[in-house]
């Protein structure tokens, strides 16, 4: 073995399988041994067998994917758990509400409340090199074909979309392929699948946080 444990650039090129210049005897010997050892190791690494497929299918058979699950949850009867201790408290609360809000004409007229549940939000991205940019997010079921953005001057892409109140996650799609988070977003989160989502929070008076 060589005293200098780092391989020369030529030795690395050699191990990459590419043509290279002459190697020192120590480099060649160690490189060959390392490749031989790695090959021996690779030969004994076996993939998990087909029993794993059965195990996975058994676990997913009784459960739906996220999209199926949501629809099923919406349309099917759901069990409700209720602690008996809450019964008198709930009754008392309803009585108080009825006494303060729901009584007859002698009660004060109800204050008009805004029924704002949707806010128009403008998304912008500077991407002069892109030939198309679209917007996808939790509000579009992550479909990339719903919100095509409009090109403006200076490589700016813009689109205004109606968003329900609450928190939304989104990304931009450049040229129909490259998904990128919003570089100007105030918060970015891991999407749990190795990617990054930008976060926008919409309140009744507009964007609370983006």
């Amino acid at each position, binding site marked *: *073995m060589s005293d200098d*444990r*780092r*391989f020369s650039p030529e030795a*690395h090129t050699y*191990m*990459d399988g590419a043509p290279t210049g002459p190697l020192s005897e120590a480099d060649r010997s*160690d490189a060959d*041994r*390392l*490749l*031989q*050892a*790695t090959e*021996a*190791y*690779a*030969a*004994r*690494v*076996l*993939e*998990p067998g*087909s029993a*794993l*497929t059965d*195990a*996975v*299918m058994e*676990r*997913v*058979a009784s*459960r*739906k*994917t*996220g*999209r*199926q*699950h949501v629809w099923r949850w919406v349309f099917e009867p759901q069990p409700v758990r209720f602690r008996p201790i809450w019964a008198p408290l709930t009754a008392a609360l309803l009585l108080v509400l009825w006494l303060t809000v729901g009584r007859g004409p002698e009660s004060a007229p109800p204050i008009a409340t805004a029924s704002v549940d949707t806010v128009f939000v403008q998304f912008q991205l500077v991407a002069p090199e892109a030939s198309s940019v679209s917007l*996808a997010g939790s509000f579009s*079921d*992550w479909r*990339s074909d719903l919100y095509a953005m409009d090109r403006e001057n200076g490589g700016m892409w813009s689109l205004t979309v109606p968003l329900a109140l609450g928190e939304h996650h989104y990304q931009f*799609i450049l040229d129909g*392929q490259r*998904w990128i988070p919003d570089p100007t977003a105030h918060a970015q989160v891991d*999407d*749990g*699948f*190795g*990617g990054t989502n930008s976060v926008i929070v919409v309140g009744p008076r507009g964007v609370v946080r983006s």
Partner: protein
Amino acid sequence: MEASDGSVVREVLAGDSERYRILVDRYRERFGRYAVALVGDPDLAADAVQEAFVKAYHGLATCRDPERFGSWFFRILSNQCHDARDRVRPMEDVARLPLPASDRADAAVDRAELAELIEQGLAMLTPEQREAFVLKHVEGHTYEQIAALTGVGTDALKMRVHRARDTLRTALGERL
């Protein structure tokens, strides 16, 4: 004709969950060895692969490009395998491991012992180096293929593989 990833994903999302078996078989075969080499323990690797497939199933609606299900799934699997490896195996000092064949440095070691050396040496690498080394030398991928899978540039991948080789050479020393 083999069904494309995109068509299978769409069928599963439409309610035909049994079709998910196609994707599980396809990517178990394609990435299973990677998982075993990365985790270092076949049973724990199988658990990690299984969890990754179940997690992918439940998140399938968020797979934004179903035709590239493999790349999307690989990122889930990679995270799962790194987590599994972190939980089970602290970094080992290969220098303290016994010599493979005998205590003579010039002893001939057979293939099984060489393989054992690499398995021990992998524990000395950083997660990034280990992944790059496994994909390059155990799976036999090109740097371009690894870049497409991991999203890491080829120059950075070459650097990781080079450092992994240097680390293995240093760590294994005369045991190699």
